[in-house]
């Protein structure tokens, strides 16, 4: 029932008002990059946003050696033409790098879910003025340019994440492939994606003819084959960003060389808002309904946050405060316990060392006494021997004297003849 207006009312100005308000507020966008190390993720991020998010002073996760999959986020505030963008890049170093990569997607899923949960809680709070949107709006998945097809790891990951986040698959380091190989590879990947029923991000159809032509062209090029670089090289007098090889220069912004410009336009210039909308309306709603259905089915369930939605706001605040106080008390008692334990330990140690010292002292004394006794014994023996020897000597002397006396007597008696 469309009615025609007879004069100028002025609500055609509405978009401008929305525009002015949003510009004041600024925008937020969270982008996640997933892929094996060495596929050029950090370089691509730097190229996309023309900033050095990862530079020599703050080396990106790619330069460090990791053993398990981490999820790291870095925030950067970019300004352009009066519009502010708080860009959060979530990186996943260590993905697919180990020998055994089972469940390497679990940390990623946990991260996305936790961001959804934070948003859900923030939404259900009483005081909602500051509701930062940290949900992951887009996930760029980097496929290694093997030229053959998707790896089992790629398929597993995308299958598990297509319901939680907008997945955009990219062919990394696309300057490895010749144009023919690239075409074949893209076809193969799309075939496998359809086979496994993976739902990658779909561009919305518009009624505008021009736009729909553009969108159709983009759809044909999926998955996008990208090359990243921030090094400026001179080619035929022009300055371009690219990679210098002995046989030529691969230009990043040349549509014939790679699909980087397509990605950038799509991601930033045309579909950023749409990505956020799909995240909000589809993925987040999926998560929310699943979470809430779990609550209403079970009634009382294990996670403590769910009870809040059925109580009145005041009671909820009371509960929050009570929880907080309890937590504090628990922490205090724990710390006291730890303190007690440490004191006991120290006391015990001191006692032990004291006993040791005592024992040692005793032993030393005993040793000393024993030595003394030994010495006494030896001395006695020595005295005895001396006495013996002296008596012997005396006897011998006596004998000698006797003998000489008898000899004298005999001589005197003149028995020598």
């Amino acid at each position, binding site marked *: 029932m469309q009615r025609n207006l007879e004069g100028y009312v002025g609500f055609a100005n509405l978009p401008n008002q929305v525009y002015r308000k949003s510009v004041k507020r600024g925008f937020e966008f969270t982008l996640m990059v997933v892929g094996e190390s060495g596929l050029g993720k950090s370089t691509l991020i730097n190229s996309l946003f023309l900033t050095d998010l990862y530079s020599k002073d703050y080396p990106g996760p790619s330069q460090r050696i990791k053993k398990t999959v981490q999820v790291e986020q870095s925030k950067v505030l970019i300004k352009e033409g009066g519009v502010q963008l708080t860009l959060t890049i979530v990186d996943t170093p260590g993905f697919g790098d*180990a020998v055994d990569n089972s469940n390497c997607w679990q940390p990623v899923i946990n991260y996305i879910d936790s961001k959804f949960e934070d948003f859900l809680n923030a939404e259900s709070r009483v005081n909602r003025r500051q509701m930062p949107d940290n949900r992951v709006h887009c996930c760029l998945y980097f496929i290694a340019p093997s030229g053959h097809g998707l790896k089992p790891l790629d398929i597993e990951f995308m299958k598990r994440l297509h319901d939680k986040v907008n997945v955009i698959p990219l062919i990394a380091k696309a300057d490895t492939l010749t144009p023919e190989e690239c075409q074949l590879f893209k076809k193969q990947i799309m075939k496998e994606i359809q086979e496994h029923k993976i739902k990658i991000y779909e561009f919305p159809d518009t009624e505008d003819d021009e736009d729909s032509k553009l969108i159709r062209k983009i759809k044909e090029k999926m998955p996008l084959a990208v090359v990243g670089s921030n090094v400026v090289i001179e080619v035929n007098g022009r300055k371009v960003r690219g990679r210098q090889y002995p046989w*030529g220069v691969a230009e990043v912004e040349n549509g014939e060389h790679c699909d980087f410009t397509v990605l950038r336009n799509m991601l930033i210039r045309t579909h950023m808002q749409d990505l956020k909308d799909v995240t909000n309306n589809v993925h987040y709603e999926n998560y929310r309904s699943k979470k809430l259905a779990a609550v209403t089915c079970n009634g009382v369930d294990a996670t403590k946050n769910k009870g809040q939605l059925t109580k009145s706001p005041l009671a909820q605040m009371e509960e929050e405060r009570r929880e907080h106080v309890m937590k504090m008390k628990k922490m205090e008692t724990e710390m006291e316990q730890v303190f007690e334990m440490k004191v006991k330990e120290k006391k015990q140690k001191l006692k032990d060392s004291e006993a040791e010292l005592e024992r040692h002292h005793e032993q030393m004394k005993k040793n000393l006494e024993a030595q003394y006794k030994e010495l006494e014994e030896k001395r006695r023996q020595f005295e005895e021997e001396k006495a013996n020897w002296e008596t012997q000597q005396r006897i011998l002397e006596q004998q000698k004297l006797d003998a000489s006396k008898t000899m004298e007597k005999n001589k005197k008696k003149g028995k020598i003849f």
Partner: protein
Amino acid sequence: MSEIVPPEVRPKPVVPAKPSHVAPHSSGPFVPSPQGTGGEGRGSALLGYIGIDTIIEQMRKKTMKTGFDFNIMVVGQSGLGKSTLVNTLFKSQVSRRTTSWSRDEKIPKTVEIKSVSHVIEEGGVKMKLTVIDTPGFGDQINNENCWEPISKYINEQYEKFLKEEVNIARKKRIPDTRVHCCLYFISPTGHSLRQLDIEFMKHLSRVVNIIPVIAKSDTLTLDEKTEFKQRVRKELEACGIECYPQKEFDEDMEDKSDNDKIREAMPFAVVGSDKEYQVNGKRVLGRKTAWGVVEVENPNHCEFSLLRDFMIRSHLQDLKEVTHNIHYETYRAKRLNDNGASGGNRKNTD
């Protein structure tokens, strides 16, 4: 040199049938040592031409008649260009290439060992080349112990050879299926070796000659290439992995200096291709991209020619010898010791 492996001689462009000099060059006082005994390490002067140096020509003739075998194994994740490189190395379609990835050729669930043999001939010399492919290596989500089937295969070949050797009635020429060389393909990430690479090379560098190569090296610019190579070399040293040519087997200073030069350049950054394009009026093997043609045999573009010269034109025989004299002997000693230790029980596990 063992008598089982017929010695292969590097083909010389011109083999002299008879030397041009006949008289001895020392016109001074005669050396009063026995002549005609042919160089007992003392370099005695010969009084006439005997013809000992024609032994080279005789060996060459014999080799040409019998031909020889060479077994090369290629290991690496799928899509790294292994089959293409082997085809480029031997300039013929010896390896089945998976260009059309049909449904039946999906990534196998376990590591398989597939060997394909071809007889190629050049200059009258026949070579039975066996390429052993290992599809499925490193492609799964969980790649624990994926080197085990490969290790088992290599030991099985040694076992086969040992059984033949130990036989009472030996064959005149034991068929040699032992793996002479293993080309390990490193993915060109530009950062460092992956955990899987290190594990594989640790387990197998003592069993077989490993030559690491950087696959699809047209991804890397020159700076990235040198940095990557340095990092890889450092990591290999840190983990104690010795690739071919091993330092401990250098026989003399000349060997050492040659091999040192090669070790400095390893791992070779290669690009493979079997398509030809026109560049500056010449037809070259290469890959044509929108920004230029990568020439496979141009040493400024990639090190394929270095690898080929090293592997085929200078060290082919050495690869076989090291396999036979060192790796096989190690295996043999271990086996015979085990046999002796368990009182002659033949059914031992390795």
